[in-house]
């Protein structure tokens, strides 16, 4: 029961703030709303029992990416920078697309998923097992993805410095 109450609160926070994040006039306010969405998603991971994913979500998304966004906004926007008003026609078309997509996908999900889902006991995933799965070479282990990701991170660091530095 307590889980359901927490889930309802978190999902309302996500629904409200993700709509506000794309509708707000100030860019900085959208960023703060996005931060609330990320934190509520981290709460959902906690509710699912994935504690490591909760930590990664808070550290990487709510910590790192938000700082990047805030710095980028302060570097590229005038102090008060309103979005220019657009034609309402394209807004209506986009809203219709979004609502239609939600309706179609919700219909498909409602009629197909409710038969197969059960909440079984979670597999024990302590940090030791996590390290073995990430750095193992057997079946269902992820050494190749892990190392590829480290190369990608290095490429991103070099690329970001090369692109953004002054000439």
């Amino acid at each position: 029961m307590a889980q359901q109450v927490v889930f309802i609160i978190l999902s309302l926070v996500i629904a409200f703030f993700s709509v506000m994040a794309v509708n707000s006039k100030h860019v900085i306010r959208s960023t703060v709303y996005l931060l609330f969405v990320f934190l509520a998603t981290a709460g959902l991971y906690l509710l699912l029992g994935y504690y490591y994913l909760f930590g990664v979500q808070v550290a990487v998304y709510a910590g790192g990416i938000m700082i990047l966004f805030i710095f980028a906004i302060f570097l590229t926007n005038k102090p008060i920078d309103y979005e220019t008003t657009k034609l309402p026609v394209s807004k209506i078309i986009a809203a219709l697309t979004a609502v239609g997509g939600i309706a179609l996908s919700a219909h498909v999900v409602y009629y197909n998923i409710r038969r197969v889902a059960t909440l079984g006991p979670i597999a024990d995933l302590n940090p030791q097992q996590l390290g073995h799965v990430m750095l193992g070479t057997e079946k269902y282990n992820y050494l190749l993805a892990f190392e590829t990701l480290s190369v990608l991170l290095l490429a991103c660091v070099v690329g970001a410095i090369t692109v953004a530095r002054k000439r």
Partner: protein
Amino acid sequence: MGESILTASQAYIPLEAYILVSLIMFFAGVYGFLVRRSVLLMLISVELMLNAADLNFAAINRYLYPEHSEGFFFALFTIAIAACETAVAIAIFINAYRNLQSVKVNSISTLKE
């Protein structure tokens, strides 16, 4: 009918609820990507969509295959890739702002000034 009563009496959160939440998040991102004209807000919309995909991975893994952890690791790697993508995109925006004094997509129409 009997199934639904059994499901309600067990009192857990159904999988559809998680998928509905991530649906709302995803299509808020789609709407923002179509409507907003500032590249930073378009990037925020893309982040919303990626976050919805992560939530789907984690929820479906937890409900359908709780003895494995493929979705968990997919979500983990997706978060890392999203961080890379954001860093490079913001570097490009800062460079574009230095050259063009604007980050609206209407004004970024030339590759070289």
